[in-house]
């Protein structure tokens, strides 16, 4: 039989091992023992080399190996298994043990007590009568294998054939090292190596069923006819099981099989997004995680988005999920918003998608209990790639393309694209015919351009038995869609290393560094904003310029805006060190150190001569944030019987976050030089904060495994936090969950209903208050022309603690018809008690800031539904579809001493008892279609501020095994927003969709028309409320066509190559009348608003990937 080499120390669940070993014992009954002492060393060497061509074997009588084999050791082995005996010998030498798992007869007991015995003698004695032999590789591997008899071996050489090929992931074409390929009904098989290849030799002529398996993937079966002296090539593509019971997922206590987890977990593997041309993790998550809201916020390359998992759970604190990369916490906060754009960058997006192996998204308090305080917003865990022992693999990718805005603004009655799409020619006028000209409109006649995109990435991975590595680099240069402004450029490097210095100890060191420079288009609520001024036509703050042809027209020069400097420079360094020590198969220890370092310098400079500030000014924001992580995790597994197991986890974590933000300002330069802060005649430090927050927690979890079918888990987390009040002690978060694989029962109709897992969980997590919320403080200020003074700051609250979110979650996952239909359904109901509510101060008592108190209650419930369909499975044609639906319903049940919290007045955004968090309230026109002035229902509820329902639809079509068409669309609905751009421009008579109405006699218009297009000078007063609109939208997030080049085209070292053509955000369907329903210029707030923000754009990309 063939030997499948497994690394010593392979871990697995006890239940699996028992079943596997039972099979092994049966197989071993068939094994003919051969007398070890008769072995011819050269014959053994030749056979071992034939069996394991990937290894280099050396004679045991030569060199270092001879010395090691003949060293004397003492042994005291009493009735131990053969494997344990071999382990003991290996443990006393420098050899590492490799063995064919199917070849170790477990029933054999070994007793050997010797004070002085050579290693060679000991091995022969232990293997005596087993038919097993050993050989030594050049890497000091002690390889145990089963010999063929010389005669049989020769016959096989003459009469047998070989099956070989490659096993890759179906979508991405990436190799799947570790997958197993066997010939069903025989004991022949092979393991797939790091380059994705396998080879099964010595197969007697005949017809077999070839089966390939890999955890998390659907099994592959194919009939193969093997002929003597023939090498049959069978290339295999495995497709992922959408809800595989044995798929490995990452939880707070490490990797585990999904069947053991009592909560819903969303996992995105690298092959899931390979076809999408996603440029960052935010784009990967968009539309792929049911229950997650990912909004882009703006259309400047480098902009970070908004991510919410199951909506907003906190009124005062961050609702951002916490982020883990390779087991350590990184900053989940965005950088400060840029002064000019009002947008910020997200450190999460520094992770190169090409480096990502998987992303696990943990939603809801029931699932995040062990993550403790700060985890109620959910957790995103990113795992990056590691090298594998075996052949060195290089991957390279080149992406080129362009970003394109398409039409700017609403399509109806807007031929000039709000003067951004067209800045020369017809139509540059107000509703009443006041004409204007752009003095420096680009030669193309439009401010819009196709922004070029270039991305290059290269990675190499490899390893030997005790050491592996993955190293990568990327370069990106992406231009925005505005001619002369916007874009980002960056480089990134990653080095992941894993080695095993001693037996049972594995050290993993992962490190990445990113540096990028982003040029921001001034936008948002900014008098120097590009969008604001261009769309206001003659009302631009840059009107009255010279350089226009038409003396009758008002001359504006908005080019000046883009000549100011609005950039950010960021660096991000992530480093993690994980030491795993597993002194026995039952006991595992993991110690993790993490360091996350972020810096960002935001600069906004208006040069000397800038018309709005003639002497110039410069504003700098320096931001630095570090996150230190230290975590210990212990795991103990014990099987009481074959059907009953227990896994206990315990651990402790300490996180320390330091955030430093310094704001500097300088103005009045003496000349037109490139200024620094010192260049200004007047300088000011406008802000400086240094905030340290420390969280510490211990946790424990016990999971009972009954027959590998029912899993009952209970856990507890105890936290302390530096932001808790001095009267507040530790916080305790409990949880309990169950997972029940009912489809494992014999009666289950697995022929068509393959798997069914029920799950339920109840758990708590928290959200800590702000760093200063608990303390009564005064602010240092200046008065009396620069003299130091104090003014009241925070009222403080010594009783302050975290808000607690308790969630009940239940659901099931099932698959049907050989995995052609899989579904995952979840219902959750979360209640946040002791919610941190900003209770306004009593002004006559001096302190004006709100006092944060644990007095509120919020609820949040919803359903999440995933359906994956394998619609077609025919030779040369496969068609899969993915469908996701989520609906969430939040409510502010109790706001303590108030029933109304204003979030953003101009965004008409409030939190009110009985309504979603937050909601949009304003004046609703009650007679919209009547020919009359508008009548209002004041303070009416419109809907939630964010979409609360989402439908995602994805499809993948594979043609002829090498063409893949992939598309993903997303419909997000239920949300409302104020189109403040239309309000501001409409009342000034410069919103083209209103022109026709504004030119008509008002008496002929309906109330709605009079209101929405009300002019400052009209009878009806313009109001933001008139522009509260639904933001329902459908966006085609991506569509791509991937062509895997035929293997026969490969030359030299190139093993595979593919070409992908992709478009992102190709299509938007919406009734929203602004520039983009996804916008938000209110960063850092629960509210969102469309106020002259840059809308998102489309991207057209071509990517050439090749592996060698």
């Amino acid at each position: 039989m063939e030997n499948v080499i497994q690394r010593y120390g392979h871990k697995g669940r006890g239940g699996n091992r028992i079943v596997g070993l039972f099979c092994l014992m049966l197989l071993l009954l068939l094994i003919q023992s051969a007398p070890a002492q008769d072995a011819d060393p050269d014959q053994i060497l030749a056979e071992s080399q034939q069996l394991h061509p990937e290894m280099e074997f050396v004679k045991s009588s030569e060199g270092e190996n001879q010395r090691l084999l003949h060293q004397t050791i003492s042994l005291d082995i009493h009735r131990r298994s053969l494997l344990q005996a071999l382990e003991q010998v290996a443990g006393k030498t420098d050899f590492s043990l490799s063995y064919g798992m199917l070849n170790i007869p477990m029933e054999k007991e070994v007793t050997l007590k010797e004070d002085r015995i050579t290693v060679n003698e000991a091995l022969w004695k232990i293997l005596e009568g087993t038919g097993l032999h050993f050989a030594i590789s050049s890497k000091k591997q002690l390889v145990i294998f089963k010999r063929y008899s010389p005669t049989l071996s020769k016959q096989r050489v003459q009469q047998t054939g070989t099956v070989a090929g490659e096993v890759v992931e179906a979508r991405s074409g990436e190799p799947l090292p570790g997958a197993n390929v066997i010939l069903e009904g025989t004991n022949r098989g092979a393991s797939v190596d790091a380059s994705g290849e396998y080879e099964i030799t010595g197969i007697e002529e005949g017809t077999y069923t070839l089966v390939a398996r890999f955890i998390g993937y659907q099994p592959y079966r194919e009939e193969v006819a093997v002929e003597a002296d023939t090498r049959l090539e069978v290339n295999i593509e495995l497709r992922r099981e959408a809800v595989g019971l044995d798929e490995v997922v990452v939880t707070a206590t490490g990797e585990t099989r999904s069947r053991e987890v009592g909560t819903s977990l969303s996992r995105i593997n690298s092959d899931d997004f390979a076809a999408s041309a996603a440029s960052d993790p935010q784009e990967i998550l968009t539309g792929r995680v049911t229950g997650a809201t990912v909004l882009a916020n703006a259309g400047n390359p480098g902009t970070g988005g908004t991510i919410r998992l199951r909506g907003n759970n906190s009124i005062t604190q961050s609702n951002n999920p916490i982020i883990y990369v390779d087991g350590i916490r990184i900053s989940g906060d965005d950088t400060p918003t840029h002064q000019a754009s009002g947008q910020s960058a997200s450190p999460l997006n520094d992770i190169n998608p090409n480096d990502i192996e998987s992303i696990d998204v943990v939603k809801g308090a029931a699932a995040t209990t062990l993550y403790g305080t700060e985890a109620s917003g959910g957790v995103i865990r990113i795992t990056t790639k590691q090298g594998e022992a075996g052949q060195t693999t290089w991957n390279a990718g080149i992406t080129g393309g362009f970003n394109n805005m398409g039409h700017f603004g609403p399509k109806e009655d807007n031929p000039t694209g709000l003067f951004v799409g067209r800045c020369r020619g017809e139509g540059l006028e107000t509703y009443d015919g006041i004409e204007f000209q752009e003095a420096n409109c680009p030669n193309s006649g439009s401010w819009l351009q196709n922004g070029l995109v270039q991305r290059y990435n290269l990675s190499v991975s490899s390893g030997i038995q005790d050491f592996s590595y993955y190293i990568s680099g990327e370069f990106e240069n992406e231009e925005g869609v505005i001619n002369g402004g916007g874009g980002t450029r960056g480089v990134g490097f990653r080095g992941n290393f894993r080695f095993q210095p001693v037996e049972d100890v594995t050290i993993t060191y992962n490190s990445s560094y990113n540096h990028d420079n982003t040029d921001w288009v001034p936008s948002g609520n900014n008098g120097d904003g590009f969008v604001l001024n261009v769309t206001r036509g003659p009302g631009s703050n840059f009107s009255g310029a010279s350089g226009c042809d038409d003396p009758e027209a008002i001359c504006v020069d908005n080019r000046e805006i883009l000549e100011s400097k609005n950039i950010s420079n960021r660096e991000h360094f992530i480093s993690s060190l994980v030491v795993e020590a597993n002194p026995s198969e039952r006991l595992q220890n993991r110690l993790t150190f993490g360091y996350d370092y972020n810096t960002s310098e935001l600069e906004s400079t208006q040069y000397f001569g800038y018309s709005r500030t003639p002497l110039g000014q410069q504003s700098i924001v320096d931001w630095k944030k570090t996150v230190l992580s230290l975590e210990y995790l212990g795991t103990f597994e014990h099987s009481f019987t074959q059907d009953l197991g227990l896994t206990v986890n315990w651990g402790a974590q300490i996180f320390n976050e330091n955030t430093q933000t310094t704001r500097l300002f300088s103005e009045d330069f003496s000349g037109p030089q490139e200024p620094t802060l010192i260049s200004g005649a007047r300088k000011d430090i406008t802000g400086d904060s240094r905030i340290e927050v420390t969280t510490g927690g211990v946790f424990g979890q016990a999971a009972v495994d009954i027959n590998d079918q029912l899993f009952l888990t209970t856990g507890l987390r105890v936290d302390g936090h530096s932001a808790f009040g001095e009267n507040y002690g530790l916080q305790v978060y409990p949880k309990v969950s169950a997972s029940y694989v009912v489809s494992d029962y014999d009666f289950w109709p697995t022929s068509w209903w393959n798997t069914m897992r029920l799950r339920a969980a109840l758990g708590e997590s928290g959200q800590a208050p702000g760093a200063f919320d608990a303390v009564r403080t005064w602010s240092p200020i200046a008065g009396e022309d620069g003299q130091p003074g104090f003014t009241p700051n925070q009222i403080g609250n010594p009783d302050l603690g975290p808000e607690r979110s308790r969630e009940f979650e239940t659901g099931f996952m099932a698959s049907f018809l050989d995995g052609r239909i899989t579904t995952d359904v979840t219902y959750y109901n979360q209640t946040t008690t002791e919610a941190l509510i900003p209770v306004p101060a009593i002004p006559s008592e001096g302190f004006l800031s709100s006092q944060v108190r644990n007095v509120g209650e919020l609820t949040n419930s919803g359903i999440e539904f995933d359906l994956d369909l394998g619609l077609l499975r025919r030779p040369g044609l496969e068609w899969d579809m993915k469908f996701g639906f989520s609906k969430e319903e939040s409510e502010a049940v109790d706001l303590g001493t108030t029933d109304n919290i204003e979030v953003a007045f101009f965004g008409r955004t409030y939190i009110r008892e009985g309504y979603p968090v937050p909601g949009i309230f304003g004046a609703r026109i009650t007679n919209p279609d009547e020919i009359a002035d508008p009548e209002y229902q004041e303070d009416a509820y419109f809907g939630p501020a964010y979409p609360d329902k989402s439908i995602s639809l994805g499809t993948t079509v594979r043609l002829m095994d090498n063409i893949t068409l992939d598309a993903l669309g997303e419909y997000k609905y239920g949300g409302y927003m104020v189109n403040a751009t239309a309000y501001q421009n409409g009342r000034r008579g410069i919103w083209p969709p209103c022109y026709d109405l504004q030119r008509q006699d008002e008496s002929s218009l309906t109330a709605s028309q009079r209101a929405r297009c009300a002019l400052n000078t009209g009878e009806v007063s313009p109001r933001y409320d008139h522009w509260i609109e639904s933001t329902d939208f459908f966006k085609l997030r991506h569509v791509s066509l991937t062509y895997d080049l035929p293997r026969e085209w490969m030359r030299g070292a190139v093993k595979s190559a593919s070409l992908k053509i992709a478009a992102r955000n190709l299509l938007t369907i919406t009734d929203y009348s602004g520039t983009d329903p996804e916008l938000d210029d209110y960063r850092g707030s629960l509210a969102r608003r469309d106020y002259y923000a840059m809308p998102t754009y489309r991207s057209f990309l071509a990517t050439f990937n090749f592996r060698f």
Partner: protein
Amino acid sequence: MKKQISVVTVIACISVIIHGCDVQNPGPIEESALNSPEAVPGIVVGMSADLSVAYRQTTIWGSVWSDDMTHSGTYAAPTVFSTGEINSEDVDTWWDYAHRARWVAESGLERINDILGDEFNSSENVAKAYLYAGYSNRILGENACYAVIDGGERQDFTVHFDRAADHFTEAAGIAENIGNENLLMAAYAGRASMEAARGNWTAAAEDAGRVPVDYRFEAVYSLNTGRENNDWPPNTIERGEYTVWDTPWEGVDDPRLPQEVIRTADGDTATAANGRSPWITQLKHETDADNIALSKGTEMLLIRAEMQLRENQDVNEAMELINQGRSYHGLDPLSAGSMEEAWQHLQEERGKDMWLEGRRFWDLRRWYGESGPSHHNYLEAQDRCVPIGQGELNMNENL
């Protein structure tokens, strides 16, 4: 033994969690740090700074409540004020700032008293603190409909005048003790205005008579930080949020009413921020560093003149005092042949002399409530005092 080790380990871990989480963040100052003699100067500068913030807000919004300026911008609250309504939901900013200034000064005095002990009555900082307490109460009394002290019940607004007068008296006593003439004049001037507000015109004139005509006590503004800025220039010179257009002062040639019509490139009158109103900017506060007077010698002359009209019905003496002030500004004297004429001159002179100094609303308010020649009808069709802020109404259980 093993059990003991486990218990010790658990205790150690929990101890690390509890104590390891303690951090000391720089920046904001814990309140206990204020309880030292070294902190007293900073406490008093803080009072001054908060008074400047409150006064700045009073001068700007008060200009719309009164006839100082016409609102011509887009900001929400002044847009409502320009209709004549002054509603609780729109006045929180002013209410909050004014009460912070009052509370900081009054509670600061108690804190300083605890810190300084016997040295309290001989400290220049204490004299200043009393002045700031007095002027912050004056701001509230002159504008608010009701007084609310430290989360207490609704009281008559004149409570602020009483408190202010007491504070000024204390300030005068300490200033006299330490021989600080400047602070003493400020105390007299402040008390003169409060005695006048309480109707004690003889006492008011007595204090006013002690203050020289060129004396000024000012709220301090500076370019040093944004918080210290005088906010008039960005609101009137850089943006036309308020305009002199359509006020009694539009186009009046008087050095106390500096103004300028803003022109477009074509020479037309520019429109203000609302896109409609003609933009005539004020030039009294030309830079962000311009101080704003809290008390002036010229105001003292007008208090004395008003006393002559009220108590003695002496038109000549009143006009003599009014003309002393005009003479100080290089203006020709005025004459009056009747009480009505004298009152008109007095009311206009107060408007001009204290233009954009946050005092006009009180003058119009008190004159509206009178009959006879002192009656002024400007506030007839509008709200005549600032209601309790909505935030106070929402949170103060005593209201």
